[in-house]
């Protein structure tokens, strides 16, 4: 049994809202369990300084940031090793889907600010970031849906909380998937698993990924008065 009485493949409650910031080109707000984050997308705009410009494609900049009050001990607001690393891997995940070659010499900035967090924040950020990018009208081949899987107290589980991550035998695997093709665009692992266990854990993620994907689609369509299937109500 898990500490919060969830089933092994049950997600924490997720709420996604698209288009919450009026000054940004695209934005999203996400609440995933205790995680709360705001994502803003700006661009495509001119890449500056000029030497960063690439005439073949747009640069994608991903800024994952935590508020100083988002964790129990005060977080130094200066981006540290952890934030820079998460920004890098998440940016590479999104580069797989964004059609950046349409915007030569431009850049697309994605800013993520966490207000509250409790494990699985990089998957929360990626999920919301792909909603914000679609909301900004940036062409992509797919959305990115992310979830963490792993092991705690001898059981393979989905969407670990901080309490579970601190278990003796805990293994945490943040995973980002393209829901259309089931390609992995981010896979990290903290801990040790047998090969069979890893395969099982990845299989376990398939259902929650589709759940997250449908939540993302719903959030995007809801901003335009459409129902789940995308049909527009004529009022």
């Amino acid at each position: 049994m898990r500490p919060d009485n969830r089933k092994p493949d049950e997600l924490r409650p997720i709420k996604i809202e698209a288009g919450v910031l009026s000054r940004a080109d695209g934005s999203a707000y996400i609440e995933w369990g205790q995680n709360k984050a705001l994502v803003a997308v700006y661009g495509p705009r001119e890449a500056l300084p000029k030497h960063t410009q690439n005439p073949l494609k747009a640069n994608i900049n991903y800024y994952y940031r935590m508020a100083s009050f988002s964790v129990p001990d005060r977080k130094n607001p200066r981006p540290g090793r952890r934030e820079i690393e998460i920004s890098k891997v998440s940016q590479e995940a999104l580069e797989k889907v964004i059609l950046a070659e349409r915007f030569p010499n431009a850049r697309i900035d994605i800013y993520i600010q966490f207000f509250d967090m409790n494990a699985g924040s990089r998957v929360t950020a990626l999920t919301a970031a792909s909603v914000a990018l679609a909301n900004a009208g940036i062409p992509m081949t797919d959305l990115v849906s992310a979830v963490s899987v792993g092991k705690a107290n001898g059981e393979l589980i989905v969407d670990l909380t901080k309490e579970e991550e601190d278990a003796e035998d805990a293994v945490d695997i943040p995973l980002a998937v393209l829901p259309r093709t089931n390609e992995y665009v981010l896979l990290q692992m903290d801990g040790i698993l047998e090969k069979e266990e890893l395969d099982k854990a990845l299989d376990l993620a398939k259902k929650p990924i589709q759940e997250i994907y449908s939540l993302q689609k719903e959030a995007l369509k809801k901003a335009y008065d459409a129902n789940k299937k995308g049909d527009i109500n004529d009022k």
Partner: protein
Amino acid sequence: MVETKTKSPIRKIVVPGEFLAENNRKIGANVFKEEGKIYSSVLGVYYPEADVINVVPLKGHYSPRKNDIVIGIVVNETYNAYEIDIGTSVNPYVLKEYIRGYLKIHDIVSAQVYRVDEVKEVELRNVRLLRGGYVLTFTPVKAPRFIGKNNSMLDLLKKYTNCQMILGMNGRIWVKDGDTELLKKALNLIESSSHKPHLTTKVEEMLKGDNK
């Protein structure tokens, strides 16, 4: 209220990567083919019954095309040229020899896109100063909705608000005189419900209602 509502085509909002149709169809804008299937590449409106599979985007940035009329703002002046902000990622420069008279920084101008190169940099011609008035903005991909079929929407707006206006394809409208408050309301309505059926009738109802 309105008797002559024609049956509007089925429309659907799709997200990037959403499956649209099998391969044996003609494809248009904002879609891509992969492994024999057609998918959307943007958040937009899809008409399943149309002959050509394409997606009309709901939001997006301005992608310049030849002969577009755009509204620009002078942001810088060099000894032989003006830098004009037209909402593209790189601001175009216009040589002073192509402009009659002089411009100041912050002047509003209308211009025509003369050439777009492979990195989407723009050359402007026919730059003209617009005296007075101000600029309203909207998302550039909705410019066709603001114009309407055969200019129907623009004509409607001009008729009811008596504004002078020039619509730039880059998501800016220059307006002067007339009932600009009513115009703003109408523009907001168009922007927020451009993806829904019977847009022109809705806007006309709203304009008529406010005139009474």
